[in-house]
């Protein structure tokens, strides 16, 4: 009860602090003195403290199962394990928005501390733009999704958290993803501030690159966590479904990756200034769009907590205001700096980075159209369509071939003007990749030419980066690690999709299923009771093609609150392959529907994404080693 009030009033207090901060900053903008007013820093810190208090009190309400709080009532239950009571705090609409706010205020405070060497006006303007976003979110939370609504009379039991959200990967997926999303808000605010101050320069590039890297790392890992969760929890054995809610997280990733690359051009050559600003604006807009599409209920999925049109309209207006504001500032203030454009040569690092950006924009437009077109068509003609994986595969996969080739060659070019060095060794690597691929792929697929081209492009990148990792010492190692990770990612995904095999059948207890791919024996089932669910554990013995027998124990869980049946896949992971078994129960029938999959190199997909982020992390902390 008390926690509720503390939480609510801290929120209102920190909204007031926002207004106060704005007025103090505007005053300070025109004052003399080199450093910003100390008051601003303290106020920003105070605001952060109040949001933390608010967030902690919500967590406390969840831990205590305080059902006088509507959010807790809707999303928690006394029998839920403590860990999921806590993670349930952000597993719902209201709490997750409070988390957004927390990260927003945290990041602007960190920004103020970390930017002491930057010009004063630039820092204050960044704070102002960020406060506009923060105020927008405060109003959104307080007006449409207050996490501290009272319920009277107090219910004795809550409604519970959707069981498929009760999962360790999903407990940390939203916070990590939000760190990435919200990090882009700092990039957005500071690029607008830099534009108004005509400060889009090498120095600014160096300073903002850290924020780009931080957001990029968190976004990458956040997407991966969601994907891992989908892999073992949704029971389809895939890790990416081209579902709209997945796509909306991928879109800012594309622009952020593009930004990450062209900010290097800005940092070294002070070129591409407008492009950097446009990318910064787009990235944040896409993050916001993601929130809008998911929260408004336009996209129905597990991420949609409630369909409330008021929320959608609020975010839409807010988004519109931000876009108009940012574009207005961009066109009013931005002056293109053309000094450096004179020495732009075709064969140079700059061009290769531009090519990367073009590819990113292409990938972005494919995903954007595939995601938005069905919504658009529904609105104008009320025709229901869906755009499935074949659309994306057909449009994205072929373009990976040139993309990978450019990726192998681009980093070897020098700035301004360059020649390709070590042509012979490159050609040898290339030929070796093609031959290797041909012999691997020959027996695996019907579409030989296409896969040879694709896989050998990936191998080419793999070997060139691998060689670089061994030969060169610390020169640009972060970039090499990240690109190596990417080649590994593409290779694992390709071989995973080519070599995966599956058996789907309906089977009774005691039966044996035989096929050329192996034998499945359904030994027995066993029932168990846990605190918040009952479970049926099935014992299967599976004999693979090589005669080895393994035991897999998938489960069917019947959760008590809310009553939902979920299947828990059992996965045996080795370095070479995952064995994946999931079963489903069809009500009133003695048959169990099972799906057994052998998925090669599954773990390498996750490892390579981690390598990709590790590259980013190295670039963040090891900056001094690089030239």
């Amino acid at each position, binding site marked *: 009860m008390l926690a509720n009030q503390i939480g609510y009033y801290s929120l209102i207090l920190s909204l007031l602090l926002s207004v106060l901060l704005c007025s103090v900053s505007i005053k300070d903008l025109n004052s003399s003195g080199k450093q910003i007013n100390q008051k601003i820093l303290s106020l920003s810190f105070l605001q952060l403290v109040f949001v933390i208090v608010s967030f902690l009190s919500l967590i406390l309400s969840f831990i205590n199962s305080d059902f006088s709080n509507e959010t807790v009532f809707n999303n928690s239950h006394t029998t839920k394990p403590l860990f999921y009571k806590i993670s349930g705090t952000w597993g719902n609409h209201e709490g997750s928005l409070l988390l957004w706010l927390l990260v927003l205020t945290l990041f602007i405070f960190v920004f103020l501390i970390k930017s002491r060497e930057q010009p004063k006006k630039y820092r204050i303007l960044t704070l102002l733009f960020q406060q506009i976003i923060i105020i927008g979110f405060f109003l959104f939370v307080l007006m449409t999704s207050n996490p501290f609504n009272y319920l009277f009379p107090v219910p004795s039991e809550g409604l519970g958290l*959707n069981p*498929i959200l009760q999962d360790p990967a999903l407990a940390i997926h939203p916070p990590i993803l939000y760190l990435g999303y919200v990090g882009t808000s700092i990039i957005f605010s500071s690029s607008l501030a830099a534009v108004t101050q005509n400060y889009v320069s090498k120095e600014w590039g160096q300073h903002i690159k850290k924020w780009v890297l931080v957001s990029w790392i968190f976004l990458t890992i956040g997407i991966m966590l969601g994907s891992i969760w989908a892999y073992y929890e*949704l*029971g*389809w054995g895939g890790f990416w479904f081209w579902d709209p809610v997945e796509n909306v997280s991928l879109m800012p990733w594309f622009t952020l990756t593009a930004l990450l690359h062209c900010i290097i051009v800005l940092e070294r050559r002070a070129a591409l200034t407008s492009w950097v600003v446009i990318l910064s604006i787009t990235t944040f807009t896409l993050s916001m769009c993601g929130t809008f599409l998911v929260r408004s209920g336009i996209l*129905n*999925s*597990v991420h949609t907590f409630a369909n409330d049109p008021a929320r959608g309209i609020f975010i839409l207006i807010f988004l519109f205001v931000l876009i108009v504001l940012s574009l207005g500032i961009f066109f009013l203030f931005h002056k293109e700096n053309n000094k450096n*454009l*004179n020495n*732009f040569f075709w064969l140079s690092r700059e061009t290769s980075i531009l090519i990367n950006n*073009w590819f990113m924009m*292409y990938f972005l*437009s*494919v995903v954007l*159209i*595939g995601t938005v*077109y069905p919504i658009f068509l529904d609105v104008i003609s009320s*025709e*229901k*369509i*869906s*755009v*499935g994986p*074949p*659309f994306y595969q*057909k*449009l994205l996969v072929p373009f990976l071939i040139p993309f990978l080739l450019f990726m192998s060659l681009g980093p070897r070019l020098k700035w301004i003007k360059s020649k390709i060095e070590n042509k012979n060794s490159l050609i040898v690597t290339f030929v070796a990749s093609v031959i290797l691929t041909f012999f691997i792929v020959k027996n695996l697929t019907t579409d030989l030419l296409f896969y040879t081209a694709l896989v050998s492009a990936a191998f080419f990148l793999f070997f060139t980066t691998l060689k670089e990792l061994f030969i060169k010492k610390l020169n640009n190692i972060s970039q090499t690690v990240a690109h190596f990770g990417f080649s590994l990612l593409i290779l694992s995904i390709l071989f995973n999709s080519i070599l995966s095999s599956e058996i*789907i*059948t*309906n*089977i009774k207890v005691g039966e044996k299923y035989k096929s050329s791919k192996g034998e499945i024996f359904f030994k027995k089932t066993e029932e168990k009771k846990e605190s918040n669910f009952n479970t049926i554990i099935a014992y299967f013995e599976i004999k693979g093609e090589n005669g080895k027998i393994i035991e897999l124990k998938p489960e*069917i869980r019947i959760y008590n609150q*809310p*009553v*939902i*049946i*979920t*299947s828990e896949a059992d996965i045996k992971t080795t370095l070479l392959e995952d064995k994946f078994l*999931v079963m*489903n*129960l*069809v*009500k*009133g*029938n003695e*048959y169990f*529907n*099972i*799906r057994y999959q052998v998925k090669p190199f599954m773990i390498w997909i996750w490892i390579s994404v981690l390598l990709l982020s590790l590259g980013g992390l190295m670039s963040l902390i090891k900056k001094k080693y690089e030239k």
Partner: protein
Amino acid sequence: MYGKKVKLRFLFLALILASVILIVFLILQSLKENVVYFQSPSEIKFSVELEKKIIRVGGMVKVQSVIIKSNEVNFIITDFKNEINVIYSGAVPNLFAEGKGVVAEGFLKDKNYFLATKILAKHDENYMPPEVKEAIGDK
């Protein structure tokens, strides 16, 4: 004469324009080929021409219509006005049950038989795909 810089710019612009046109064309083309339309049992019944491409059919699983054999699942999708038989061999999602909403993807054999290649997983028992809600009216 134009300077080198201007020429370079023109080349750049032309290249951008050409690639944008190409990209838009490519995307629209494959959108046309890969879009999956949603139809209700009634729409299939009254359609003049039989759809040959992959479509999605949605509605309710008719009560007492599910028959499970060792290699396939048969059931009937109804929108309470018309119904269609579905033949499916594959994994059934958790929340597939008689009297619940369902969306199946596959091919039409004829107006009465639908060969499903996929039954779409739903995340939540109370959740009903908007298409299905519309297909069965306000029930």
